[in-house]
């Protein structure tokens, strides 16, 4: 028996409240660790680990991947990977509390299909992943934390991501509206 | 809801405004206490010999950071290979301290003799930097030991001859075109290498 109607509006935190807490979290993270939080770095570690596991010689020879292969431990044994694992848990926790854990679903705009959405998700992810290496981070690590710590690069990345997003939004509108 | 948001907006503006009026804290907490400084000054452990420096340069020890504290014109005329120039008067600027306190790096001050490099060491120690040293005898001693080593008399112990051999070879290394400071700039090598062995600053000297 469904307690909630399918289209009932999900319960979200007040965004400003969430933002304040997030900002404080950034400050606390700096206070404890001297660095901010992030996310894309853990995917990079995953890539490095995978390549290293499948073709270690190739990984060593690659001038980019080899930088992230420590001598004595797995590339996955770093701060960001643990933090990203925490993100998964935190998301799960919130989903449980707010009742958003449901069967696997694909979210898409009204005028597009699920399969189209998935294709664009992969493409978008690939572009984002590729760009994040040049940008030395993603919206969390570079834009959010970078800007918050007054880093010049952080502000540039933030303006670049959102500015570009607005510039190209029209061309992908069918995906979302 | 609107009234709450207006309140929050004003609050946030006031907090942001407040950041103008909070004074910047000085880095006082990092300065070394006078008693400790006095203790450190009287230790000879800050000295490294010209032999040790020569050895580190020849072996391309990546932890070595040579800092010439003489004025820029003297540095331009002659200095040690890969040495950076931070004139003594600039030690107190942030740029002057760029080469200090880098993880795993050992900064060695030198000047013509000990006086300026010792002063640089005292100032830097007071600012809280660690792993900083002074090349005993400075460039004058360098010339006397490495470039123009004096052959020990026949009655001298074997170690004196070994030192002399080392110095002759080192001298050839340096004067074979390498005594002029090379233009490689500052090496901020982040390679973790075997720790520099703390040899006793005993053998030879000026």
């Amino acid at each position, binding site marked *: 028996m469904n307690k909630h109607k399918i289209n009932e509006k999900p319960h979200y935190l007040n*965004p400003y409240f969430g933002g304040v807490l997030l900002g404080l979290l950034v400050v606390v993270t700096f206070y404890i660790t001297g660095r901010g939080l992030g996310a894309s770095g853990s995917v990079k570690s995953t890539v490095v680990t995978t390549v290293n596991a499948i073709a270690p010689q190739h990984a060593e020879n690659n001038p980019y991947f080899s930088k992230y292969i420590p001598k004595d431990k797995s590339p996955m044994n770093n701060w960001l990977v643990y933090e990203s694992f925490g993100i998964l848990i935190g998301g799960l926790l919130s989903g449980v509390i707010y009742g958003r854990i449901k069967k696997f679903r694909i979210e898409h705009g009204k005028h597009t299909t699920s399969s189209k959405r998935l294709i*664009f998700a992969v493409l978008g992810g690939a572009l*984002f992943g590729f760009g994040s290496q040049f940008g030395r981070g993603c919206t969390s690590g570079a834009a959010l934390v970078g800007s918050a710590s007054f*880093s010049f690069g952080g502000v540039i990345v933030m303006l670049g991501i959102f500015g*570009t997003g607005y510039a190209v939004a029209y061309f992908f509108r069918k995906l979302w509206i | 809801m609107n009234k709450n948001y207006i309140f929050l907006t004003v609050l946030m503006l006031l907090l942001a405004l407040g950041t103008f009026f909070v004074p910047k804290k000085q880095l006082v907490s990092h300065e070394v206490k006078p008693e400790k400084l006095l203790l450190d000054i009287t230790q000879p452990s800050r000295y490294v010999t010209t032999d040790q420096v020569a050895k580190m340069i020849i072996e391309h020890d990546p932890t070595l950071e040579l800092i010439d504290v003489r004025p820029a014109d003297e540095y331009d005329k002659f200095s040690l290979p890969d040495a950076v120039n931070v004139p003594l008067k600039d030690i107190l600027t942030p740029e002057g301290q760029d080469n200090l306190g880098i993880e795993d790096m050992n900064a060695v001050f030198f000047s013509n003799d000990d006086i300026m490099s010792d002063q640089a060491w005292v100032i830097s120690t007071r600012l809280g930097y660690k792993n900083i040293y002074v090349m005993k005898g400075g460039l004058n001693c360098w010339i006397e030991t490495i470039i123009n080593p004096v052959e020990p008399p026949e009655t001298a112990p074997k170690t004196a001859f070994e030192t002399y051999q080392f110095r002759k070879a080192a001298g050839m290394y340096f004067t074979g075109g390498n005594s002029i400071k090379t233009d490689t700039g500052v090496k901020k090598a982040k390679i973790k290498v075997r720790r520099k062995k703390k040899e006793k600053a005993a053998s030879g000297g000026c």
Partner: protein
Amino acid sequence: MGPLIPNEIITGDWNFVIAILIGIAFGFLLEASGFSSSRNLAGVFYGYNFVVLRVFFTAVIVAMVGLLYFDYFGWLDLSKIFILPTYLSPMILGSVIMGIGFVMGGFCPGTSFTAIAIGKMDALFFAIGLFIGIFIFGESFPLFKDYYYSGSMGNVTLTDVTGIAAPWFAFGFTVIALAAFWVSAEIEKKVRKNTKEYKF
């Protein structure tokens, strides 16, 4: 006096425990604010949902102001915190590519993790895309290795580059953010009135 671990007030052994805890808090906040939905995230670009603007921008100004006060109270030594290094040209290029990827994919890495946690398949595919994108980057790295390292300005702050003191930026960002919040609320109302079927 922070930062605690670099100042060795807490030992480095705690590092990974703290990492997980901070990650949990981060993931929780993201999901609870609605960032686990790609439609919510993309909404900022189309005007029907400004949650990204509100949360992100609020976080930035709170953190900026917070860091300055922490410095004033002597709780945090700002000279010891990590400042993201600036590589001017590559970062501009990277952020443009990321912007396109964001609109196409509807996620960024952190939010995709929270969405995966609650069962969103499009987030999973986005994360797979991330993997592929970074892999391609690494494989083709020799082609643009020099470019990747170009434009290095070091770990410069806004103050280093402009000579303007930090409180001006904190205040400036705050003013812009607050103005944006009020304006976007109006825009959102209008856009939502016109799109009858915005389903969450």
